[in-house]
């Protein structure tokens, strides 16, 4: 709606320039150049400090040590060390995305359709808004305080229940420890994103299904889940991207014992441990490709799902 009223304003601003010469209407017609001035700082900033640096890196992936064009860096990504770091990253991102999605969905369903007091829903939503930004050093410290060797839960399990987690093989400084920690911001993100979709499941659909003889389970199987499914997939994709690019938490928790791609990249930037600046850029390229693709999947799925529900 705003575009209607806004174009009215910009169209009425057009006559000054339209009086010049009749020209074919093109994308930028009807806009005074003065208007661009206001948006210019934004666009200049975006170009200089968002787009170009990234492109610079992308291009740098194709540059050899002597400055010539090469695909060698990309090929070098195939070394076992690099491949294994990508593989670990993919596994952690996938694990935390799936776990985060499943539990996030369950919690969202519980607070929205579970007939709990309404105050619970607003509390959980507010908390999720904050917790989804919790990723980082403090989160690692928090989980160390909880499940580390001297952590509260570890100690309670040992003293009260006689169960020594660490002797049984658990270690917070591990793949699953990091995944568990990542869930702390993945689950709230899932809750925030899926809540509107669950709200969109109209009560009348439940009632219509019931009058047609369907049990609650049949409702979910034929109507509820099919409608939520695209949103779910899309959000898993988003959570994957979110985890893939994260580094601070991993750095503080598992350090370089878990060689996820951002950690390798970090070490490379810090001290050229790979002995090959081009390779660093190639690593970055690999990361960007993965996060870009997964984000695009999320956006595409979301737009298509919204069309259904008009």
């Amino acid at each position: 709606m705003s575009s209607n009223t806004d174009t009215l304003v910009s169209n009425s601003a057009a006559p000054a320039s339209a009086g010049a010469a009749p020209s074919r209407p093109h994308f930028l017609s009807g806009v005074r150049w003065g208007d661009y001035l206001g948006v210019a700082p934004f666009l200049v900033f975006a170009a200089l400090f968002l787009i170009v640096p990234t492109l610079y890196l992308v291009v740098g992936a194709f540059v050899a040590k002597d400055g010539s064009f090469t695909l060698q860096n990309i090929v070098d990504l195939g070394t076992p060390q690099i491949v294994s770091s990508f593989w670990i990253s993919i596994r952690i991102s996938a694990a935390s995305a799936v776990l985060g999605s499943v539990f996030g969905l369950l919690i969202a369903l519980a607070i929205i359709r579970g007939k709990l007091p309404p105050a619970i829903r607003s509390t959980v939503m507010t908390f999720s808004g904050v917790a989804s930004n919790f990723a980082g050093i403090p989160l690692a410290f928090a989980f160390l305080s909880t499940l580390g060797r001297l952590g509260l839960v570890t100690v309670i399990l040992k003293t009260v229940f006689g169960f020594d987690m660490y002797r049984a093989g658990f270690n917070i400084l591990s793949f699953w420890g990091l995944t568990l920690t990542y869930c702390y911001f993945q689950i709230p993100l899932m809750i925030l994103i899926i809540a509107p979709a669950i709200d969109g499941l109209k009560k009348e659909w439940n009632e219509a299904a019931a009058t047609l003889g369907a049990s609650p389970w049949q409702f979910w199987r034929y109507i509820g889940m099919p409608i939520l499914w695209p949103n779910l997939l899309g959000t898993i994709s988003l959570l994957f991207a979110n985890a893939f690019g994260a580094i601070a938490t991993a750095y503080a928790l598992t350090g370089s014992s878990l060689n996820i791609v951002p950690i390798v990249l970090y070490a490379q930037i810090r001290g050229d441990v790979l002995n090959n600046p081009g390779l660093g850029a190639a690593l970055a390229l690999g990361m960007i490709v993965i996060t870009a693709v997964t984000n695009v999947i999320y956006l595409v799925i979301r737009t298509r799902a919204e069309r259904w529900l008009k």
Partner: protein
Amino acid sequence: MKHAKLWSWIIFGLGAAYFLVPLLATVQFSLSIRRDTLSLDAYTNVLQAPAFQNTFGYSLIVGIATIIVGLLIVVPAAYFVRLRAPQLRPIIEFVTLLPLIIPPIILVFGYIRMYNSSSPLPLTNSVVGTNILLTLAYVALALPYMYRAVDTGLRTIDVQTLTEAANILGANTLTILMRVIFPNIIVAVLSGAFLTLAIVIGEFTIASLLNRPAFGVYMQNVGANRAYEPAALAVISFVITWGAMGMIQLLARFAPRTAARTD
């Protein structure tokens, strides 16, 4: 149908445990520096450390600089897109998506490559230059949130009508922006500002790779060397983040809005 309620409570309970226990554990850990009693020693150690005060102050200043620069960039852009150049909206929205797609580590890597000593804008060569680079990196990180906050604020106050009214009364664009628009979106702006502050204070990756003495770097250092102080830092960090979010919620109640046109 009764089963649904029981399961809901169970799931909620498990979720609450997963999210609250680490917070409680952190607080408890932070108070356990002395073997047999609870004490605030970890906190006093941390708060009195000069490194804490320096890095926290540093991050605070950088945060404020980020907010100011961010606003200077975002507010005019949001205003003009809404009012005069709606066809630029898709481009702007695409730009605000970029920081969410590009991981911060990639961003800072790109900066280091592009603005090092062999580039036309050798920002990394000087401390001041690097500080500027850090601030700009944070502006990039906060861009999506700031833009969304300001854009929502503009939409709520029906910027179009206010501008026309001020125009008819003789004001030029700059005056309108400064004396009519900005005061009315202060609440939305402050929301974006608090969010930015929360992001900046705890940030680690960019500050560390640019070698700046930021609070996030300090926290990581403490974590590597001490046992109980990190928990105290984590608690302080949580309190700050929650405080910032609390302010945003509070501000939401004071947001001005005009009736009539909604879009």
